[in-house]
């Protein structure tokens, strides 16, 4: 099992290097001489031009330059930003990365959780009105032109009902006299969310290990209790209003992104459940006299989960694309919005650096879904 993970890790690393190399070659192949374009860029002060020239190693052949670029990337050296000189690309990305991770992660978790739960019910009620309605809604959400959908969401919830702010990360007026910078508050939130996730995971593991009756109790009352404790912690914290402000700004983008992703997961779960329900072991479960709920959840859904997890890989590209657009439309200061800005202002190092980091995110997501699959499928786990 460890061997499997290690193998995947090495494969992933190789893929990443290949990706970065291709990225550099692409950069190198753009029309006009890249050296000229970079070193003679009027927006760059002379000393920066010197650094650029040196870093690009313009006297080296393409292969050498590519290797240098990849090695530099692995050392966290992504070059200097044209538009935000003298900041390095690395520092710009590092500042914005946590916000993007929060957006992607929470939207993905929400989408998969809801999509799986609803897809399961859809397959179970095949042919009923609920199913037809959800399928149509799912297809609509899956194929809707995303920027358009996001604008409509913003208009509907933000403008029409005034429930949510119209984009951005914080309300600046609220933060005058704040005891710490928004980013630090945000980091604390992120850490607390991570802890929340771990605790919830531990609770569900505990519920699995305990004997059935006790386990069921833990599974039913544990998560709500943990959630209440989590909310109480921030409610009592002196940073309450600031945290609330960030959360308020986060909610609509997360919901928008999740509702599109969710549709894909739901449709896939439905298809996968329908396949599973034809399996012989479902008939066995029925013959064993299991209640419908157990057949659906313990037997059918558990197996239907496997293709859904695999699809996480295929959906990654979709998720990331959606995330970038979300950040652009909601003016969410993450790396997706950064990529758009950098592209529009032709800040090439920042754009390529960001793309590289996005590639890493995709890779990590791939790895996570691989490991998750292995954990869920004993046929791989035990071989």
């Amino acid at each position, binding site marked *: 099992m460890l061997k499997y993970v290690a193998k995947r890790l090495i494969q992933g690393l190789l893929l990443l290097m290949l990706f970065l190399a291709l990225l550099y070659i692409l950069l190198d192949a753009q029309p006009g001489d890249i050296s000229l374009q970079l070193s003679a860029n009027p927006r760059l002060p002379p000393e920066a031009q010197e650094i650029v020239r040196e870093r690009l190693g313009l006297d080296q052949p393409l292969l050498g330059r590519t290797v240098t670029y990849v090695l530099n990337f692995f050392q966290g050296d992504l070059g200097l930003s044209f538009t935000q000189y003298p900041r390095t690309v690395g520092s710009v990305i590092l500042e914005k990365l946590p916000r993007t991770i929060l957006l992607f992660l929470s939207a993905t978790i929400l989408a998969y959780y809801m999509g799986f739960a609803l897809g399961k019910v859809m397959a179970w009620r095949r042919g009923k009105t609920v199913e037809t309605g959800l399928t149509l809604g799912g297809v609509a959400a899956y194929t809707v032109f995303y920027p358009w959908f996001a604008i409509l969401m913003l208009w509907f919830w933000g403008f029409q009902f005034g429930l949510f702010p119209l984009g951005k990360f914080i309300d600046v007026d609220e933060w005058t006299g704040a005891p710490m910078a928004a980013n630090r508050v945000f980091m604390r939130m992120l850490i607390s969310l991570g802890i929340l996730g771990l605790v919830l995971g531990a609770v569900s593991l505990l519920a699995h290990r305990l*004997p*059935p009756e006790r386990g069921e109790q833990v599974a039913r009352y544990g998560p709500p209790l943990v959630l209440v404790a989590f909310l109480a912690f921030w409610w009592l914290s002196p940073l309450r209003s600031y945290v609330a402000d960030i959360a308020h700004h986060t909610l609509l983008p997360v919901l928008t992104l999740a509702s599109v992703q969710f549709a894909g997961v739901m449709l896939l779960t439905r298809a996968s459940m329908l396949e599973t329900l034809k*399996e*012989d*072991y479902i*008939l*066995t*479960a*029925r*013959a*064993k*006299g*299991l*209640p419908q709920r157990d057949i659906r959840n*313990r*037997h059918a859904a*558990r*197996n239907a989960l496997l293709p859904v997890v695999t699809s996480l890989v295929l959906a990654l590209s979709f998720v990331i694309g959606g995330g970038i657009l979300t950040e652009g439309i909601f003016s969410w200061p993450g790396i997706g919005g950064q990529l758009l800005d950098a592209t529009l202002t032709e800040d090439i190092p920042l754009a390529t650096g960001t793309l590289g980091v996005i590639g890493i995110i995709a890779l990590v997501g791939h790895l996570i879904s691989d490991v998750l699959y292995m954990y*869920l*499928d*004993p*046929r791989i786990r*035990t071989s």
Partner: protein
Amino acid sequence: MATPNGRKLLEVDHLVMHYKTKKGDVSAIEDVSFSLAQGESLGLVGESGCGKTSVAMSLMRLAADNARYLNGEIRLDGEDLLALSEEAMRKRRWKSIAMVFQGAMNSWNPVYTVGDQIEEAIDLHIEPRPTEKQIRERMSRLFEMVGLNPAMLDRYPHEFSGGMRQRAVIAMALSCDPRLIIADEPTTALDVIVQDQILKELKKIQEKLGMTLIYISHDIAVIAEVTDTIGVMYAGKLVEYGSTLEVFHRPKHPYSYLLLSSTPSITGPRRKLAPLEGEPANLLDPPSGCRFHPRCPFATEICVTDEPPLEDKVPGHKAACWHSDRVPVTIGVAV
């Protein structure tokens, strides 16, 4: 077959079941009656699509959603299963009637250990709930009984061979001490040697526990190895019913005769195989009169117009045929 004292364990009484489809009604079970006393074993035989699996599924009340019961009763210990609520029936599954399935290879859920899946049934049906240790002991005993190492309980299905999986299925079927076990082609997907081992095992357990068994197969030779009584089904109807020896040596229905003579025998003397010609009857629009008449070598006018009743030809040996006396005695089929 009449037994002197009182009620039988299972009584199927004039059961009629049709599948509703877009093209019309499929008459899957047509007026089938039989009964089974505690400790008896019955074999149901016929070509695929003759309704034997539909009978098994009806006993479990697991037939497809479009199944309609138009007439008849299925009584287990005098209680009509068809009249029970779904919830009441659910509680009786596995506890009263357990089943070993046709696709036993895939009867196991790949993501749970075999032990967990057996435990699931025990948890559900045995009152009061035994302790973890008692369950473990019980499962170990079952595994030993079917010839498996109890350590295999913690393994996943994919780590079992086909024969082992089938043995484990039998262990699971026995786990709640059911009154009746239905085995639906349990050995079909296995190779011949494993098939034979499992049959012997099943026979041994049946005798040891005095288990009541319904064994379903298209292979009449296999059935003969395990059962006392045979019911032959054709096109949704029970066409012959009698003790295994009787049916085997003196079949009273041409279909049984042809089934027997189309089965090669390994142990008996060499003989000519008579092929069973023609297609199985179309159940959407079954033939008039005797449903077997289009394929029957002895068919006459009356077979086309009138349906033969299932009646005693010899005491205790029933058949539904107008020309029972013309069916030859089979020779050289070893039992």
